[in-house]
């Protein structure tokens, strides 16, 4: 900086700075995007949707009364009576998925995979529809499914009363468990009430609701997604990370300095979201799920993604699952 004050600077005649060129060419590229009008009439009813006779009979044999008050009356008889499945475009099941919900739905080698995806593929097969997946954010899913932009969401979405006001859910197909992970060096114990501790969690997740009810003394730090939260835990910005049980397995493998502090069985049901205007689809999906419980398809898919036994609450609701396992 001292050099700048040197006296000879004052006598110089060269410009102290460059004068910008006058010639400024502004190139404006106007891209006209023709947005395709979204048909949301919902009249594209499909002739498909008749369950195969064998499946219908299996469903009838292994039927258990539907316990989900939110869904229209589902009976095995309805399944065999060929419910009229209304989908947005004939023959196609338009499915909204997320890309970061291990193990429910995530992207592997550029393809949508996961527990929910496998179930959805099977459901679509049984409804004689071709699934077509679109990866969306949770916001887009929550708005797009009720508006019939998508027929259904293949996500591990908690069934919440507020959500049920705007969208229909299939019967619960999964009951999760939660895990709390922390650094081994943090010395947090399983029966801790986390008083004064900072717990990271993903905003709007099932753990968010749970933590508000059960850990009122903890400081809850909400993150938009899991990766920043796990990095914040590693960086010492938070004391613990409260996340879905299956996710903890992944993180404990990735970070050896972390430990599972607590594992919590929950009764929060997960269902497939659909539009309130598609009762036919809701009952068809429920029938397909029932059939999959009965013939063991569900158990096979479950075991592909989870190491722990079937969710106890689900088995209680569908005793046929216990029969299949034995």
């Amino acid at each position, binding site marked *: 900086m001292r050099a700048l004050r040197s006296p000879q600077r004052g006598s110089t005649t060269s410009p102290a700075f*460059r004068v910008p060129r006058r010639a400024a060419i502004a190139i404006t590229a106007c891209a006209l995007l023709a947005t395709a009008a979204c048909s949301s009439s919902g009249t594209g009813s499909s002739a498909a949707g008749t369950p195969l006779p064998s499946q219908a009979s299996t469903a009838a044999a292994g039927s258990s009364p539907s316990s989900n008050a939110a869904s229209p009356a589902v009976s095995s008889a309805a399944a065999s009576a060929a419910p009229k499945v209304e989908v947005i475009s004939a023959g196609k099941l338009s499915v909204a998925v997320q890309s970061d919900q291990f193990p429910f739905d995530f992207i592997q080698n550029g393809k949508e995979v996961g527990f929910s995806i496998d179930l959805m593929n099977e459901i679509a097969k049984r409804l004689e529809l071709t699934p077509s997946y679109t990866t969306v954010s949770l916001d887009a899913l929550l708005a797009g499914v009720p508006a019939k932009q998508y027929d259904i969401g293949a996500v591990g979405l908690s069934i919440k009363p507020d959500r049920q006001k705007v969208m229909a859910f299939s019967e619960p197909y999964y009951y999760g468990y939660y895990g709390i992970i922390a650094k081994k060096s943090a010395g947090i114990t399983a029966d801790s009430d986390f008083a004064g501790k900072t717990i990271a969690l993903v905003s709007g997740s099932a753990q968010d609701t749970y933590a508000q009810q059960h850990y009122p003394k903890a400081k809850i730090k*909400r993150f938009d997604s899991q990766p920043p939260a796990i990095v914040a835990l590693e960086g010492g910005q938070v004391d613990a990370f409260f996340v879905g049980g299956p996710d903890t397995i992944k993180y404990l493998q990735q970070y050896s300095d972390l430990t599972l502090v607590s594992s919590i069985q929950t009764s929060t049901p997960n269902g497939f979201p659909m539009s309130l205007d598609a009762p036919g689809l809701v009952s068809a999906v429920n029938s397909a799920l029932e059939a999959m419980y009965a013939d063991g398809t569900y158990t096979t898919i479950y075991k592909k993604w989870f190491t722990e036994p079937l969710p106890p609450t689900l088995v209680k609701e569908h005793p046929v699952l216990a029969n299949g396992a034995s």
Partner: protein
Amino acid sequence: MPTGLHNFFHTFFDLHQIANVMPDLLRDGLLNTLMISAAAIICGTTIGIVLATLLVSRRWYLRAPARVYVDIFRGLPIIVTVMMVGLGLPIAGLHFFGRNSYPYAVFALALVSGAYMSEIFRSGIQSVDRGQMEAARSLGLSYLGAMRLVIVPQGVRRVLPALTNQFVAMVKDSSLVYLLGLLASQRELFSIAKDTTFETGNLSALTAAGLVYLAITIPLTHAVNALDRRMREGGAVRLATTAGAPLQLLGAQEGR
């Protein structure tokens, strides 16, 4: 109403939902957003002015680092910078700002906006006639003194409208702090709205947040424009004598 239009209005303009979230937005969100954006604007402007004087330097070893800085921070997606600063510094063991997400976010936003603003200031400084520098130097001012007292004040005045864009962008980008994790009391407009959409499955809360953002950005724009006008008119101080009254500065009287 056609179904599609009805769905659109129900999803984004549910008045009930907007009314529900508005108190939260105004009580916590507004203040937090203003706090982050004001801090980021002040720090960013400072960085921008310093960088701009380096960018117009004739010495390559002053120009080059500033140029590299601007290229990097203007070119990187802002989300990457926020993550690298806010999550990267702590994980590297550098807990400059403790556990609070705000200072990290402000720092990251200031780094980015400083890069943008430096180019705005540079264009302003370079638009000042060369004769101004020559005249200032011939009066005995040092280069830095001439910059500080003569060139920069004139240059800044000329680029105020362009700076407004940057200020507005800062207000909106302040929402990126949500990436770093927020305590309930720390949530700014966008994260409150986002959390609400997760609860309700309806996007009207985002519309509500959008309205509050507009309530910040539109007055901000007009305030800077008014300042711009005053600076132009105030450039030549007008003296007026009214009957019986002493000399008054009109500019001071018209201050509004």
